[in-house]
């Protein structure tokens, strides 16, 4: 239990309190020089995320074979994908890695407001067209605007900015 406070103990307490505080203040004071700031000033200086960073999703629709694997593996069901069987009289095109595209992709939308950025969809993708990019600046004013349709021209045009170098 706590000892009874004696007369000398009282002053010893004050002495140790001041002494240990001065030691602590000295440690803090040394940070004035010799320590670079660790924070960055955001809008002017942008942090470059590591290559492996799991940020915004990007689907390269030209290589997508509409296999629905991403939508099935998604634990929050935020990927909306729909496709139509390719008419038999048409030639079946191929992806960059040679996989035939038997279906025509008509819709590929990701609700990034729901997405939990777990990365499960990118690992199951057979043609590796769905990837995480290092882009993290895509805030919107409305929740509805967070649904990104990857078939729109703007998103296809943004490819160079989005896809990892």
């Amino acid at each position, binding site marked *: *239990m706590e000892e009874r406070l004696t007369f000398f103990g009282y002053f010893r307490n004050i002495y140790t309190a001041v*002494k240990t505080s001065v030691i*602590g203040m000295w*440690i*803090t004071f040394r940070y004035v020089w010799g320590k670079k700031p660790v924070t960055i000033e955001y809008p002017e200086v942008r942090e470059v995320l590591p290559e*492996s960073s*799991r940020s915004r999703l990007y689907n390269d629709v030209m290589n997508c074979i509409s296999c629905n694997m991403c939508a099935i*593996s*998604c634990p929050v069901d935020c990927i909306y994908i729909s496709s139509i069987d390719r008419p038999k009289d048409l030639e079946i095109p191929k992806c960059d890695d040679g996989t035939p595209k038997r279906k025509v992709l008509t819709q590929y939308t990701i609700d990034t407001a729901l997405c939990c950025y777990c*990365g499960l969809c990118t690992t199951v993708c057979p043609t590796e067209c769905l990837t995480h990019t290092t882009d993290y600046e895509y805030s919107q004013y409305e929740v509805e605007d967070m649904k990104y349709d990857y078939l729109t021209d703007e998103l296809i045009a943004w490819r160079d900015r989005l896809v990892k170098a």
Partner: protein
Amino acid sequence: MQTWDMDLEELKEPATESGEKLKTELLTVNMGPQHPATHGVLRVEIKTDSEIVAKAIPHIGYLHRCMEKHAESIDYRGVIPFVDRLDYLAAMSQELTYSMAVEKMLGTEVPRRAIVIRTIVSELQRIASHLMAFGTYALDLGAFSPFLYAFDEREKILRFFEEISGARLLYNYFWIGGVWTDITDQQVDYIINFLNGFEKELVKYDKLVSQNRIFQERTMHVGTLSLEDAHSFGATGPVLRGSGQAWDLRKVNPYLCYDELDFEVPIGEGQRGSTVGDCYNRYYVRMLEMVESVKLVRQAIKLLEPGPIIGKVSKVIKLPKGEIYMRTECPRGELGVHLVSDGDKTPYRVKIKSPCFTHTSILPHIAPGQMIADFVASIGSIDIVLGEVDR
């Protein structure tokens, strides 16, 4: 709806000089749910007699996300991102428990390299989590700069985690059967560099906070939890060790490769004139554990040898029928996963035994008789994360 009835018997009724009794009432103070000292959305209803806490009633459930119910409808791999979100300050450790439970049911053999990587990563996660506990605890007690220093070091660990897994907090890095990505030699060098610097930082923290007389006065002999009560509450982790029991699953029932590593289990033994089981001991056990974790990571790095990082797991995971209760030593205590399977693609029941839930139930026990400011010190010392309390 039931409400808490005022407990009139506990009222003090001091007599005045003429012998009449003053009519006094306990004052009800609501601490939280939005209060920085409650470390999340914990609401504590405190009945105070002047400044002394007569009764504290924690109300939890503000962060209840139905994780256990939701897990019943998604496949075994999909549960891992949800397990992350329980204790968001130590997500790697949560994933470890869950994936170990599934692997044990499946009988999957985890490759050697994956086991060593898991050991390294979960020990680094322990350091990161304890740094957070240290920083916010000092902040609760009025010291601001340790918080910044702790965050600086924690940031370095998070940077490493971001490089290997891609995320800063919610990693989804431990997969069933192994780990997601391999760690490179440069990353190993980065860890060793970090550990070298971190050991010096630990000495600094000791001088700055642990030896500080004001900090000691605030935490010593406050919120004492006896060993008997700690057992009865089922407390684990730093709370049990702070009460003087050298209980650590890594030592008692080794998993991963802890049986090959040499480390000690720090316990609270009344260091620097404190009472065993008080806030200072619980805090100090965490500081000593960080030293042990540094030792563990150094030894585990030497065990790294090339090899595969993920074992053979079928594409669609179906667990055999049965149930399992798996527990591991997380930074905040023992996390248990009670997994029931009926042979289907989704779990039949996932029950998380969270250490923070157990530790929050200690609060009403240690609160009576404390000052309100000391109660804040008590909450900080048990280091709860509300995401895990409410699940």
